[in-house]
């Protein structure tokens, strides 16, 4: 069995380091905030202009002036700060936000990512994703390894040799965490499988992957 959504979240949370400032994208990445390991202190950045994002407010305490980049009502932790969008993206572009975790529609073996547009179909815009992948010193993608059909069956690989969807960024993904495994992606080297879902063999993973990858000599099952 591939990992569940919660297991992907838990694995991604183990990438957090004490003192990191982190920007979390919408979807699976947002859930990483609920799985921060004990003893690890992180600060969450929200690109609409805030450091120190706290949990959702108690029912009745919502403030329309206090939202995250997903437009959800949130709270501010002690020590939080607010700033303009120009300051926020200066922070991101300038490499001050240590880590970005975001979702993707496709990731290539070279670390290209596509997550913002399906031509002629879905027009939402790139939002802050292009700035985040270009500016963050470390970029982690969490996603399901294969696309899902309307019936829920596993379909086309999302890890591909070449992205067919419009790119969000080129050669910018450092680590890919899916329900199949954990892959590092190094510039000029390519993709290496570091950890596999406990119930999946390397062959199972190859079958569901559109890109070539090396297997780490210290390959191990993902600790669950």
């Amino acid at each position: 069995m591939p990992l569940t959504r919660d297991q992907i979240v838990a694995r991604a949370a183990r990438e957090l380091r004490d003192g990191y400032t982190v920007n979390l994208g919408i979807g699976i990445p947002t859930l990483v905030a609920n799985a921060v390991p004990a003893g690890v202190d992180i600060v969450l950045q929200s690109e609409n202009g805030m450091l120190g994002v706290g949990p959702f407010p108690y029912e009745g305490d919502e403030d329309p002036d206090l939202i995250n980049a997903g437009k959800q009502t949130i709270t501010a932790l002690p020590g939080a700060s607010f700033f303009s969008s120009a300051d926020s993206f200066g922070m991101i572009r300038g490499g001050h936000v240590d880590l970005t975790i975001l979702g993707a529609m496709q990731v290539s073996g070279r670390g290209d990512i596509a997550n913002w547009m399906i031509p002629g179909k879905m027009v939402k815009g790139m939002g802050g994703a292009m700035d985040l992948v270009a500016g963050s010193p470390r970029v982690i993608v969490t996603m399901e390894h294969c696309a899902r059909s309307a019936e829920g069956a596993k379909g086309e690989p999302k890890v591909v040799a070449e992205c067919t969807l419009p790119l969000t960024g080129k050669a910018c993904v450092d680590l890919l965490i899916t329900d199949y495994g954990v892959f590092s992606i190094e510039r000029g080297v390519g993709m290496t499988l570091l950890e596999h879902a406990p119930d999946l063999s390397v062959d199972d993973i190859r079958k569901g992957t559109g890109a070539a990858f090396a297997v780490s000599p210290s390959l191990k099952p993902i600790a669950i």
Partner: protein
Amino acid sequence: MKKLLGSAKDALADVDDGAVLMVGGFGLCGNPENLIAALHQRGTRGLTLISNNCGTTDKGLGVLLAAGQVKKMVSSYVGENKEFERRYLTGELDVELNPQGTLAERIRAGGAGIPAFFTATGVGTAVSEGGLPLRYKKDGSVDVVSAKKETRVLVDPRSGRERTYVQETGLFADFCLVRAHTADESGNLIFRKTARNFSPMMCTAARVTVVEAENIVPVGALDPDQIHVPGIYVGRLVLVTSRANWIEQKTTRPRPTPAA
């Protein structure tokens, strides 16, 4: 010069068809809803709007879009408005999508007299290479696409390593419409929490900046150290008549019940 005007209607009396406007707000947070309503009533058409989003179907700038008053949007994310997608994909609306940080910096640059700058954001994507659909035909085929932009290899000041950057240009508008939390009568502004977003830069990047404030206080009542936008950038000021302030996605957690 007296900046405080009697109504949103008076503040927008010279916004003509075809005007280019910057409008503050992120999603429905920090939108100048009173000024948007006045612009809707005024019926001005052919507008170009520079704003991160375009409201929802019936709120924020979505009101102007639904009324057919908008010719072009310059935005970063428009996923919350179905009507937007329909108008764009059938050629009724021109759309220039920018990375959010690039949009913020283009506005900041425009207001600061910087004609262009280089950024790594979007290099190797359609943002630098061109081909983003700016306008569709009625039948859904692409009519006009974005042009390729100049790229240059420069040294990253932080790492000292060479990297490819793309040139982006400053933006400047005829009018800027924003909402502030508190203003003094000379136009010094203070925003509240994440309602600040794009508004401070937008105030600097238009010929006429119009502010609706939730509170207006006499000159001298604000601490100069706490001001987010100095009054030099603000031309007109009105007090909000509606405090409409929408929540787009209400997310909460259960309140802990006190131990019995």
